[in-house]
């Protein structure tokens, strides 16, 4: 799994390439925590190149969403593929996280 970060429109964009599962979720966790500690609390996770995410990954997203919210920020996600979207729907994460179809709409708000 590869993570690249960039900034745009007051958001920190975290692009994830590959999959977030038992083995890779700790890396994602480290990256996101690091960003929040550095004061970057408006996060956008770009899932364009994410193949799948397991509950280990969802755990990280949930923790991150709670942390950013506590600091008046937010965690948005965008560009979910059908499989990932299904996981989000089943787990109820579609309702607790802000999900956008693509980067533009996510950053526009």
């Amino acid at each position, binding site marked *: 799994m590869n993570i690249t970060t960039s900034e745009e429109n007051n958001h920190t964009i975290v692009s994830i390439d590959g999959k977030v599962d038992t083995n890779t979720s700790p890396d994602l966790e480290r990256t996101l925590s690091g960003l929040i500690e550095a004061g970057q609390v408006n996060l956008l996770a770009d899932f364009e190149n994410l193949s799948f995410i397991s509950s280990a990954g969802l755990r990280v997203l949930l923790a991150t969403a709670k942390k950013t919210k506590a600091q008046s920020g937010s965690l948005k996600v965008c560009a979910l593929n059908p499989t990932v979207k299904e996981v989000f729907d089943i787990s109820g994460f579609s309702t*607790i996280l802000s999900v956008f179809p693509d980067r533009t709409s996510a950053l526009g708000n």
Partner: protein
Amino acid sequence: MSELRQQAMILAVDDTPENLDVVKGLLVPEYQVRVAPNGQIGLKIARAQRPDLILLDIMMPEIDGYEVCRQLKADPDTADIPVIFLTAKGETEDQAAGFELGAADYILKPINPTLLRARVKTHIALKSSLDQLKRTGEELAKAKAKMEDELNVGQRIQLSMLPTVAPRLDDFNVFATMRAARQVGGDLYDYFFIDPKRYCVCVADVSDKGVPASLFMAVTKTLIRASTSDDHSTASIVTRINNELARDNEASMFVTIFLAIYDIHSGCLTYTNAGHNPPFIKRADGAIESVNDLHGPVAGAVEELAYKESQLQLRAGDTLLLYTDGVSEAMNSDDELFGEQRISSLLQRADVGDAESLCSELLAEVDSFAGDAEQSDDITLLALVVDKDAQVSQTEVFEIELVNQFSEIDRLNDAFNEYADRVEIDMATQLKINMVFDELINNIISYGFNDQREHKIMVRADRGTDELIIQIEDGGIPFNPFLRETPDVGASLEERDIGGLGIHLVKEVMDSVSYQRNHHLNRVMLVKNL
């Protein structure tokens, strides 16, 4: 209620001492007699001593006999003591007033000795009978409550052991139902995958009724599940079950068993009948067959018996119907039996395609036949309908052995995805299976072993025509991952808890999941329709 006394005790209340002497003279020594010179003292003695009878004067100073009677009847401790008014007030209205207050009788003064003794005897006897009746009633109520408790326990044991969700696969569909008689019997049915290629169905009937039968049934069912895990011969399985049951069977209970293993790929049904009523098969062309072979006597009776087995072929459109004698021996109010004929006729008439509707139809037919007559035995039905002809799997089976390290999950997924490409499973499904593997293998590695040693985890996958069947086996501590509670997926961000989410995803993404523990292995089976 008065305690049991050797001799009945009578309380006489009168403000004239001579009257009390007369009463005492007439009733002692046959009865114990207490006396009270006025109403107040009378009431005190009544409450303290609980006499079996009270003789009450009416005309007394301070409180009169009517008032005493009223108070006696108002107090639950003394309300049941019969009261006889002894008085000169003989007018009808006075008598009526007395009876209305709850008096049991009325004797006019001057007292006629014979009359007094007779009336006293009658009322004492009456009171004694009433007391006896009350005691019996209380004992009956207790016994009834206890019995109902037992029945409930028995029923709960019975029902909790029977699977209720029948799989709908493309190759066949199965349905079973058991309706217990009022007195808990010992019918059971079961259906489950032994492995991706073999499906087991069985029906059994324990002799006797009540809680012991349902416990015997529980043991039988456990033995069936345990014995089928590594044995594919029904003869061998039933032989082993019989030995186990017969060994410590002090109560001499026995069980009839019909056990069959259906090979999904070849269509072959291997079966053993241990003293059970023969099942029916309806062929695709409408012909009805009775599966008559008997492979041994009822199970649990005699140790060291060798049971046999037979085989037959099932094809698309065939239906196998198993049942217990609660069906064929269902009686109506004219003492007629439902009989095997009616079962086979209904099977002939029915438009079979769906196991569940066949069972409902048959059950409805039995009910309408039985009418008002009470169900005397458990009624069990199990139907297996073959939808597609079995095909020998052309595709290879996927098998891999992992060790309990997290890095192995990637190796599993890579190997599986290669296999999946070869057998033409689409990408989206592959990703889902990858996720499922991640969840389940993670669980096993994290929680399955309590030591630091290396352990093996076996994964097998078999692509059928329209479904993918996966089996994961590990030798860890007994652990059923599907017992996790479903998380509240509607909860808000603040309320969300991460527990149970992984398993929830697995259950939602796969079409059917099951867990079995056999010997020292945890076995999880998953099915995904393609």
